[in-house]
């Protein structure tokens, strides 16, 4: 068969109109005046592009990959495929049947699930391997950010009471080498959190709404539990690592908003396992320090009465925690334990007034 083609020698920009003859031995190219220009061995021919829509097929040679031959004739292409079933690497073949695409998407979903499940297991050892210096500087940044627009409360007697309580709890910790530093920010919410590097923050409202020092001690013990297990650092590792992984996976998709959203969905709050771990460590610490863990229980109970069973969460802090009923049950098992109060009455009053002293300037917060 003979079909028209367009030939480029790869050396000049001059197109040459050719007649392409196909035989089972090979392809012969004749120029416009009928003179033989070239003979191509079938085994040497490579397909660069399949014909598509009104686009011609493009061929080249293994032995001379600079040349190009364009042929629009589909029958020629079929013949070539039949007798020279060879293609160049990198040819833009698209096996895009719908089932294939669906299959790849399903495989992608499985990988996403594996990463989402497996990554936290990895972040734990990583969090423990991070040097203290890094954790401290990250923690300070987090704490400063959370305290923006709030005042750090520092009435000396209140601070002394809080510090001695945290030291007492820490001394009863399974690993007393861990350092913590508690501070109180004015106002709400009824909340406390742990940042990397043992930086703990309590909000004033939590102290004033608590029914006695044991409840504050319970929350504090829980947060120290987080700090000991390095959950905050793990959270940061999770967030950073996941955003990198998601970004990389999405490859061509250069939409930061999607990456951020996916990462945030994934890394919101601690896992329930982490909360359970903090609960258990906290309760153990309290007992060993001679404080009744009842405080933890009653605090959760009162919150439950007020807000229901945390899960639907009016309160962000408790929404990621195990359901309150479950925690109350767990903690009540230790209810027979009676200790001395977490703080003497004078100390407790001082702690409640920790924010009353407004002499601390806000500038102290603004400039960390």
């Amino acid at each position: 068969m003979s079909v028209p083609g367009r030939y480029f020698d790869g050396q000049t920009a001059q197109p040459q109109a050719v007649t392409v003859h196909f035989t089972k031995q090979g392809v012969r190219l004749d120029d416009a005046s009928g003179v033989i220009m070239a003979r191509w061995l079938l085994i040497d021919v490579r397909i660069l592009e399949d014909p598509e829509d009104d686009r011609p097929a493009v061929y080249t040679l293994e032995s001379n990959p600079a040349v190009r031959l364009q042929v629009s004739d589909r029958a020629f292409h079929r013949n070539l495929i039949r007798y020279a079933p060879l293609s160049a690497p990198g040819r833009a073949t698209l096996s895009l049947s719908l089932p294939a695409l669906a299959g790849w998407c399903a495989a992608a979903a499985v990988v996403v699930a594996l990463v989402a499940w497996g990554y936290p297991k990895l972040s734990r050892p990583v969090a423990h391997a991070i040097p203290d210096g890094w954790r401290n500087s990250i923690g300070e940044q987090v704490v400063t950010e959370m305290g923006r627009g709030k005042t750090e409360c520092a009435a000396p007697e209140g601070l002394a009471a809080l510090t001695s309580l945290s030291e007492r709890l820490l001394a009863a910790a399974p690993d007393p080498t861990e350092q913590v530093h508690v501070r109180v920010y004015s106002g709400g919410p009824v909340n406390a959190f742990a940042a990397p590097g043992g930086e703990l923050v309590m909000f004033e409202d939590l102290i004033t709404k608590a029914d006695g020092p044991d409840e504050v001690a319970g929350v504090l013990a829980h947060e120290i539990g987080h700090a000991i297990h390095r959950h905050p650092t793990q959270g940061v590792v999770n967030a950073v690592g996941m955003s990198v992984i998601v970004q990389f996976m999405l490859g061509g998709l250069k939409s930061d908003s999607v990456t951020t959203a996916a990462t945030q969905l994934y890394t919101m709050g601690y896992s329930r396992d982490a909360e359970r771990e903090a609960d258990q460590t906290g309760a153990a610490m309290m007992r060993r320090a001679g404080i009744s863990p009842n405080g933890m229980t009653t605090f959760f109970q009162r919150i439950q009465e007020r807000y229901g069973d945390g899960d639907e969460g009016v309160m962000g802090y408790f929404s990621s925690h195990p359901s309150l009923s479950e925690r109350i049950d767990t903690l009540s098992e230790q209810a027979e334990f009676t200790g001395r109060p977490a703080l003497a009455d004078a100390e407790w009053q001082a702690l409640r007034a920790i924010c009353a002293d407004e002499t601390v300037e806000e500038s102290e917060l603004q400039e960390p």
Partner: protein
Amino acid sequence: MTGHDDDRQTPPEPGHAGRGQSLMGGANAASGPIHSLSYDGRAGRIFAIWLLNLALNVVTIGIYSFWGKTRIRRYLARSFTLSGDRFEYTGTGKELFFGFLKALPLIIAVYAPLVIWPPDLYPVTNFIFILIVYLFSVAIYAALRYRLTRTQWRGIRGYLGGSAFRYGFIVMGYGLLNILTLGLLIPVSDRATLTYKMGNVWFGNVQGRFDPGSRSLWSSHLITWFLALPTLGISRIWYAAAVFRYQMNSFSIAGIRLRAEPTGGQLSWLLFGNFLIVVFTLGLGTPFTIQRNMNYVARHVAFDGDIAAAAARIQQSNEELGSSGEGLEGALGVDSGIF
């Protein structure tokens, strides 16, 4: 930008123009036939390739992206036609992947100190930030070179001469000037960087020429610069359009001049539309923004001159191709250029 461009009529013959009409015309009106760039890529096709890439990227934790990117580029290049012949992208995923691997140690070496060093070592970290700006410019230039050497038309490939490192110094030096002058002198720096870059573009054995002549960026710069604050920077889109016209219309190669006259309004519409598409499809509409960008380029870029005469004198160059490409750029996560 400069109103002195001669009356640009709609291209006489879109597909197969340029058959030996000699280069006549007046002295300043270099008006051979105008050859438009045509684009016939299909959004559905891009979407299919893109979606498959996305799935394979996830499955391979991103490793596939180099091959996926290549696949998109091949399709896009093939969809552009000039004077009857399609462009071709000959890069491979393997080249991109190895380029990335090669650049990775450098990236780690540069970024690691930022993480490890305590923040009170500011001189060190500041120096590293300058180094990163420098590396970004180097990476962009090197990537442009890779893409030009892998883009061909009628079997002849492009090339970018000059030195990526020198380009990095030019960008960094003028960047410092722009910081000190609050951006007032941006046209000076744009002219310098464009002159270096565009003047080093080759096609085959022919080097391009970048000659702004009487064109100037000053009027659009000053107007949009003063309006930048009240318009929250949106006015600068008009400057970006002016730079595009300046860059294209000042460039000629083998007697062919580029022509591009997009207005700021057209560019704003492109960007605004792309933004809406991405936001309201949660990123799934990205392929359609690609399609819009390609259509924009094809609609606005034209070639003015005797292509047949130019083709007669252009030969393949013997420049080295380089074995792997745009590693630094890939590793830094920047993506520039149209393909």
